[in-house]
């Protein structure tokens, strides 16, 4: 049963809640208690912008069981416009279209299902811009 853990992650999964260091502007996604860059413990709560670009990517062809019906599954490291980085699936495209440097937009999708009877887990995925 994963619902306590899932519920706790909602601020990040649903609206990309992050912390911005008030000293050095480092963006912590997910939020942290201490800045890894400057050691400050003061953060301002922000939501990352849902747009960014692909830093690197792959297309997973052999997936863990949960994702085995979704292959080939493009996944990328994405840098948001603020400079924060995250890993997300790139969906609704031909895997051949995914390339380093391409612009993406983050959207809201179902990421995993806890079997046939458990909860559905939502969060961010990316689609190619334009």
């Amino acid at each position, binding site marked *: 049963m994963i619902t306590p853990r899932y519920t706790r992650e909602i601020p990040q999964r*649903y609206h990309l809640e992050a912390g911005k260091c008030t000293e050095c502007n480092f963006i912590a996604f997910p939020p942290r208690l201490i800045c890894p860059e400057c050691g400050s413990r003061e953060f301002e709560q922000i939501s990352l912008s849902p747009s960014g670009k692909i830093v690197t990517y792959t297309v997973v062809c052999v997936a863990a*069981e949960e994702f085995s019906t979704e292959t080939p599954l493009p996944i990328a490291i994405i840098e948001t416009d603020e400079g924060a980085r995250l890993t997300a*699936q790139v969906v*609704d495209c031909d895997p051949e279209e995914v390339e380093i440097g391409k612009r993406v937009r983050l959207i809201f*999708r*179902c990421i995993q299902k806890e*079997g*046939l009877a458990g909860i*559905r887990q*939502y969060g961010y995925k990316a689609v190619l811009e334009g």
Partner: protein
Amino acid sequence: MTGIVGYGAYLPRYRIKIEEIASQWGKDPTTIKNGLLVHEKTVPGMDEDTITISVQAAKYAVQRARIDPQEIGAVYIGSESHPYVVKPSGTVLIDALGIGPDVHVADYEFACKAGTEAVFVAYSHVKSGVMRYAMGIGADTSQGAPGDALEFTASAGGSAFIIGSEKVVLEIEATYSYTSDTADFWRREGRVYPEHGGRFTGEPAYFRHVLGAGREIMERAGLEAKDFDYAVFHMPNGKFPMKAGRTLGFEKEQIEPGWVVPWMGNTYSGSSPTGLVAILDVARPGERILLVSFGSGAGSDAFVFKVTEEIEAVRDLAPSFKSLLEENKIYLNYGEYAKFRGKILMNT
């Protein structure tokens, strides 16, 4: 003045052609296309459901409404494909949009009219002054059993509407509902696909309710077909809305802008609401729109809308319906479609 202050539609990118489904079942595609007046339909991605469709449509509605989503006092999602039987769709949506916790949330179900039902109740809250803004959504990932006639049309998509009293885009001039107990189409608890009464879904169900609601709202509002620039009726297929419209005295030209079923299919609770959004791609200030939904079981909600000057300010703040319908389509074959829709028997 109370009415719609923000609206948005969302359609998945995936499509399947009617020929593809027909050939799977050894049926003649031409006969089916001519019978239904449908060419292709939308298919939800494997990670899309009523909730994700509603979230995207609602985000576009908020963009057009230019409001802080926190000010929305109620969110109602109407659908017959809520991903959970028990646990609301709307709670996911409010957290995704940053609404609440000061918000009233409920999921509606009334076959294909659950969406207009949601809009109807949202409108009542705002008009009565209980809250400043309320949102009603109609969305579905419609189910149709493999090989059933419904499989040719059951599609995915939805539209969201924010009701308010400032910067109104579409004034609601009149509302009316026509309801009776008519079991033309249903899905029992625990069943995956709906059942329907075949030809019984026509005259005694769709036409009786749609025409009943259409006639009565025009009568009460003192309007005739010629007083409207557009009319949209629930679209289970291409023929029914055209026939209903003509019976009520509308011309093809008034119906066509919102007649989205030939290239979208029947998005159930999202059908007539999305037809309305399609009209807003082209509607001009001062124009009047009639909307009549239909939900099996059965009932119709009817609305008379009048377009205001605000339409020009908000139209381009989110993607047009035309772009959602026509751009970036990805076609599936029947095997992919069956996989996407969970129609393949798996071991897990």
